[in-house]
């Protein structure tokens, strides 16, 4: 496991806050993350129900369970990354580096880092309908930037791919500059995005922030 300094933004006052990027998240970390995040998810769910918010408008990762993904980290091709700030995991991401290849025409069949799962801590979700403004922003950007950096370290030139939940499509398109490839009927019809080496270089140069 290694760590490096990164920054995130505290939403309450737009202050830049020091955080730690972890490369080498362990299975036990996923269990810990889930134990801490589960009660917060439950509180959010209760507020959503109390406010009669339609389920279609609930955060789409509300029912994820990171402890069930511990097995994913046993594979050589698996990568685990996270952001720690204030002593808490603020976001986590699992990647795969061998079982997916690029579909983008200019990069077809070349290797990429596939972002299997990425999520920010539930207390970071801004949910206007229940008055939640979220604690930190920029965590998702830090993690996507790290996926591109991991791709470069692996010799993949920054190529990444991911299936986006509908609520995150705009983030990957507009903020991260990923290219929309199309809906994938084999993956719940989610929109699949990829990042070319040129787009990765641009996002990394700009220090992309959400």
């Amino acid at each position, binding site marked *: 496991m290694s760590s490096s300094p990164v920054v995130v933004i505290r939403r309450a006052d737009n202050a830049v806050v020091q955080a730690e990027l972890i490369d080498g998240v362990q299975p036990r970390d996923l269990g810990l993350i889930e134990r801490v995040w589960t009660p917060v998810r439950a509180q959010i769910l209760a507020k959503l129900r109390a406010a009669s918010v339609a389920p279609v408008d609930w955060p789409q990762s509300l029912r994820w369970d990171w402890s069930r993904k511990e097995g994913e980290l046993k*594979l*050589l091709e698996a990568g685990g990354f996270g952001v720690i700030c204030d002593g808490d995991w603020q976001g986590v991401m699992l990647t*795969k*580096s*061998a079982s997916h290849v690029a579909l983008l025409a200019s990069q077809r*069949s070349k*290797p990429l880092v596939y972002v299997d799962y990425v999520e920010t801590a539930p207390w970071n979700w801004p949910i206007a309908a229940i008055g939640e403004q979220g604690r930190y922003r920029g965590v998702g950007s830090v993690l996507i930037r790290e996926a591109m950096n991991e791709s470069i370290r692996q*010799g993949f030139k920054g190529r990444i791919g991911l299936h986006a939940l509908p609520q995150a499509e705009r983030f990957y398109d507009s903020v991260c500059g990923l290219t929309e490839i199309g809906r994938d009927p084999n993956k719940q019809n989610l929109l699949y995005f990829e990042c070319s080496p040129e787009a990765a270089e641009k996002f990394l140069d700009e220090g992309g922030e959400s």
Partner: protein
Amino acid sequence: MNEKRTMTLNLTDVEMGVLEELARRKDLSKTAVIRQALRLYQTVDMRLGRGEKLIFEDEAEKKKSEVMVL
């Protein structure tokens, strides 16, 4: 944990030719191709071990064939 160890890999001319061609087409170093092959082999082996099947599908020809992996 990520400390690297060195090994010598003896390949025939044909095998080396295939490795060099894969490295060229995949835009990777030869070392990275071998590393990718090992990762993929482990992933396939683990999933087969769980009882899953590895299948190649040709949509145009409407053909499916199961791949047997050693």
